[in-house]
């Protein structure tokens, strides 16, 4: 479903070129739960923004659902973000003047869902994240954990193909972070594809598949599902680039 090949992302800072991503190839299939871990500045957010079609690579190709993303217009990209991708941000990014329920409705507005339908769907999503009684609250009337739940409900409202979460627990305490992680696990069980970025190895371990980034390169892939799932395993092995595969061997040994 998500297929990145030889993706590079450079930033030109005066005379220096920063390689935020350097030759990253990656494949994520429907129903996967992947966590991306790596030190600060390793390019995790950059990678997520590329996957989420918020940003474009300097080189390489990205194919989403069979479509090469670089061929899409601004409007088509918006549509992809609206229908195929659900974003969860570290800082929640709720719209401050809208209630929790209205925040959840926003992607549905852009999807053109009519008002009544939208309300019902949004309410349903709030129920799913355990906040059905907080719909009328404004974001600043909610706790951090609650805000992140609203953001997750919002990301899920349009029934996207994949949920992208960039350090969703980064602004939360450990206990709340674990609750959010439990929610992700549950969503994954229901069939949602999830890509999760985190600093925290403990949280990363909750995902069946872990991709390690360092200095813009994939330095390791751990796939705990490989042993159990025989079918489709060939596809999964192709996920990592050659160098990453070597690194994986080192890690395993």
């Amino acid at each position, binding site marked *: 479903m998500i297929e990145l090949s030889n993706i590079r992302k450079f930033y030109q800072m005066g005379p220096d070129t920063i390689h935020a991503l350097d030759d990253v190839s990656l494949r994520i299939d429907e129903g996967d739960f992947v966590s991306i871990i790596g030190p600060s500045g390793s390019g995790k957010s950059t990678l997520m923004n590329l996957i989420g079609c918020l940003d474009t690579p300097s080189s390489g190709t990205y194919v989403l659902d069979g479509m090469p993303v670089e061929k899409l217009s601004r*409007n088509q990209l918006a549509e992809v973000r609206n229908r195929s991708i659900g974003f969860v941000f570290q800082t929640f990014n709720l719209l401050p003047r809208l209630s929790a329920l209205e925040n959840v409705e926003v992607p549905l507005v852009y999807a053109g869902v009519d008002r009544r339908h939208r309300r019902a769907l949004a309410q349903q999503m709030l129920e799913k994240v355990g906040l059905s009684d907080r719909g009328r609250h404004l974001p600043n009337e909610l706790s951090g954990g609650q805000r992140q739940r609203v953001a997750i409900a919002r990301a899920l409202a349009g029934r996207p193909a994949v949920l992208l979460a960039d350090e969703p627990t980064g602004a939360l305490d450990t206990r709340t972070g674990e609750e959010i992680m439990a929610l992700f696990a549950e969503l994954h069980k229901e069939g949602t594809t999830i890509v999760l970025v985190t600093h925290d190895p403990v949280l990363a371990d909750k995902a069946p598949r872990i991709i390690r980034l360092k200095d813009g390169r994939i330095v390791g892939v751990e796939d705990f599902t490989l042993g159990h799932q025989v079918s489709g395993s060939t596809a999964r092995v192709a996920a990592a680039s050659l160098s990453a595969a070597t690194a994986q061997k080192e890690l395993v040994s």
Partner: protein
Amino acid sequence: MSKDRKAGMKLSRDKNTAMVIDSILMSVRSLVGNPVRAFLTVLGIMIGVAAVIALVALGNGAKSTVADSLQTLGSNLLIVYSGEPRGSSLVRRNTTNITPVLSQEDLDSTRQLSGGLISMAAPESSASVQLKVNNLNMAATAIGTDVYYPEVRNFFPVYGRFFDQEEYASRSLVAVIGIEVYRQLFPSGEDPLGQKVRINGIGFEIVGIMQEKGNSSQDSSILIPMSAFQRSISGEADYAIINIQAANSEVMRDAQLWVESVLLQNHGIASMDFADFYIANQLDILATAQGVTGTFTVLLAGIAAISLLVGGIGIMNIMLVSVTERTREIGVRMALGARPGDVLLQFLIESIILSIAGGIAGVLIGLLASWLAVHVGNMAAVPDYFSVLLAFGFSLATGLFFGGYPAWRASRLDPIEALRYE
């Protein structure tokens, strides 16, 4: 998954309506949520619209005041003045020191030969005189005329009577005094009828008081029979003025042309270019006066339009600030699927809502100001509903135009840059 997405596609036709309604609700909410800022933003538009409406109302009021006060001169009035026409000023302020050239023959021919164009005519000559009652003095204008004068000039006695045909014929020394003359010469309010007033030392018996006209030239005059005026005061046989009432307003122009030709013939003059008299037509006076106030209105409306423009720039300024402030929100919306057009629409609607709010407030203030001008300020103000529409439409256009650039800027933002914005 793909089935869901197709279902979503089907709904996309209603999308724009839903977006518009949502944007309207949201901008109304942000307006209400931040009333002080909203007020300051729309202040310019508000003042502009209010100014257009109030000033046009005052201009209209001035126009109709001029029309009204001209109507008090008399209806369908033509005034023949002795002397050469003087440029564009149709009304002679000072008629006391012109050489009279209009004869009894002129008066008779206008009266008798008009063929239905003219219903009445009255001669008029005037002089500055000194009035004296007992030991009170005042300066006034003595007007010599005949019994048709009240009718032609729409100027009647309120007390007592006008002099009659018999008194006119017998050159009786009788006088009808203006209300101001009465007030000054009879300060204690006694009955003036039958009392003597001395005009330049000659005693006249007061037979009536004229109605109040609100202009000093008529209210401070004293009216006496033309026959007595000629003999006792001016010594001139000719008249300074002939007041003519046309049969109706449609024939005024014809009546004027007819009178011109008759008088030219009487005076043996070839054309109006060489005439020793000229004719002021009430319609011309009205047109000139309204032309002046019309220019005034245009000028005021121009000033008001400039303030609308300034108001529009105010909206643009605030919308630019708002776009910058809400860069992150725009980024979030784009991440959630807002297309550039959706963002454009949202900000455009916001500025239109702002300008409509300002426009409505301006209309209300403008109408209120007009109402106050009439009921408190005692001014004439007639709100013109076309100007209300115009001002309102203009404020809307201002919102569209000046909101357009900020909205366009918002729509061109790069999603990732916008999300990173601090």
